[in-house]
């Protein structure tokens, strides 16, 4: 709230919409990103909530205008109102609920059919904290924390422990689907904060900023040459070269 109105000229506005089944944690993902907070037992969103957050990326400041939509089925028909002009979408599912991925897939399909063709879509598998061995359950080997971390981070290897049995969507399956559908993919936990900043930073990286700037600036501002230069730079993939640099976190 306090963000609105400050330094409007230098920041690029990016409209972002969150979609996904009810109770997968859309509002919690946003709350973590915007306020770095987490609330257990949040009330369901009604209609849609509007939030803003700035995100610094190299020399650019992005101002996310976020539409956090209600997941209940009766609000489905309203979704086009929110994604129509969106430059980015985060489709959220719950890693402990297989049906929520199916719902996410149908949102992705709808977005790819009906939203802005340049829309950047990210798939987020939320509640990943529920399928990780928690600090308390691995309390017996507390002196080897680093080892434990390394073990869970081993790619492709399912971490041991009962908590993993809650998982209904294997990471690899979601990753494969995301790659095939051309989506960014993250597993996140709004509760611990894992993956949240990465998610929004990665979207920021992929947003064709020059394109947005060119379209909002209008024809009058820059000459045709400058405009073309901007577009070609965007087509060349501004963001590819930045991949090797260390990540700039969003300055929340």
């Amino acid at each position: 709230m306090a963000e609105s109105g400050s330094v409007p000229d230098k920041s690029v506005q990016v409209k972002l919409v969150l979609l996904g089944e009810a109770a997968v944690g859309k509002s919690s993902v946003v709350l973590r990103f915007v306020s770095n907070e987490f609330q257990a037992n949040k009330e369901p969103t009604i209609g849609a909530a509007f939030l803003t957050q700035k995100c610094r990326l190299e020399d650019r400041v992005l101002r996310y205008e976020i539409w956090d939509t209600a997941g209940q089925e009766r609000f489905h028909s309203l979704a086009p109102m929110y994604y129509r002009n969106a430059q980015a979408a985060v489709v959220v599912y719950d890693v402990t609920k297989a049906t929520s991925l199916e719902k996410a897939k149908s949102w992705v399909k709808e977005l790819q059919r009906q939203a802005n063709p340049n829309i950047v879509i990210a798939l987020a598998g939320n509640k990943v904290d529920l399928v990780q061995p928690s600090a308390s359950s691995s309390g017996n080997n507390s002196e080897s924390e680093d080892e434990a971390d390394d073990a869970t981070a081993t790619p492709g290897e399912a971490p041991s422990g009962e908590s993993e049995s809650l998982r209904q969507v294997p990471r690899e399956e979601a990753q494969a689907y995301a790659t095939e559908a051309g989506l960014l993919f993250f597993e996140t936990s709004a509760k611990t904060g894992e993956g949240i900043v990465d998610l929004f930073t990665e979207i920021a990286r992929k947003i064709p900023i020059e394109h947005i700037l060119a379209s909002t600036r209008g024809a009058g501002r820059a000459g045709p040459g400058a405009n073309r230069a901007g577009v070609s730079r965007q087509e060349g993939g501004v963001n590819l070269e930045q991949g090797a640099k260390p990540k700039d976190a969003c300055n929340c």
Partner: protein
Amino acid sequence: MHVSLLGVSQNLSSQLEFLHLQILSIVTASQLRRIFERRTNFDLRRLLDGTETFLHSMLDRLEFDLAMATSSLHCLRLDPMVRKRVADTLVPTSKVKDILYVILIARGRVVTLIRPKKHSIHPADIHILMNTVHNPSIFNSPAAASWIPICLPKFNPNGFVNAYISFLQRDNPEEPSSAPSPSSPQSSSSASVTDSDSGTALVCISGGADFDTIRSWCDGVTQKLTNEGTLKLLSDCVRSGQAEYTVSELGIPGLRHFVYKSRAQVQVTFPTFEDPYENLTDRRRIITFYQVLHDAIHAKSGQSETLKLQYIRTEKESVMGWITQPFEMYIALSPRLPKSAVVGAANAVSRWVKKEEGRLFLKDAPVF
């Protein structure tokens, strides 16, 4: 379902009516009809999923809300100049299309209400809005604004309008937002339900779907209210307690409480509940009396003729309901007063309200 203890059948039907309206605000009458025409055994809970809290808070309101009980609007008591300053800021420019109503709410009461010339607003729709705005889903949301489809059943039971809701101030006593500790908010959300009507909210009802236009207009209005000091004037009024009054301000011997409804303006005013109505049991009793009197003077108690005035005395208090052309009034007094003194007190209340009218009621709010 916990229906209040009033036990009066007329009251029960009015409670059910409000619950029905609240449901309509979520699914519209035509949707509801279509569903039940197709499947008479449809489980409505599927459609109301996630909105249970709206019905719960409506039930809580129904028990004690005197504005709902008298089907009228309850304004915030305010210096008319401050109210006018707020109102002048809220008149939409002709550029902003589709705006239906603009309402500023503080402490669960209407500060001002701007409407088009050709549309008035039904008090029931205001009560539905009030219940919606203060719902924890919206009130506790960290969002800068909420944009929700809502059916205002008295305006149009078959269609949705969009409500832009933005809290300008939340004045929560225990400001939980500053504490980022991840475990605490659970308790704070239940605490804020009890004082759910705090905060100052700007509500803009639009017939259109153009959120961005509404938002930038509302942002501008909010900035203007802040920059010109109007919002501070308003919150100073609220904080200093001027928005409330007690019966002692009237200086009428033996008077304990009253409810005055201006019939022409469909607005109600009443003092805060204090001794001997501070605790819930006594408050319930007096509200039940008001309800009984209300039904009697509106011929809703099964009698063949309407009463103009009804007087009841018990060992705890005397109460009287009185209906005239300009007003209806319910007063509670000490049981030791003779009936003549009760009538005298009622006249004194009506004179006081007349004198205070400018602050108590919303008058001459701009239309567009």
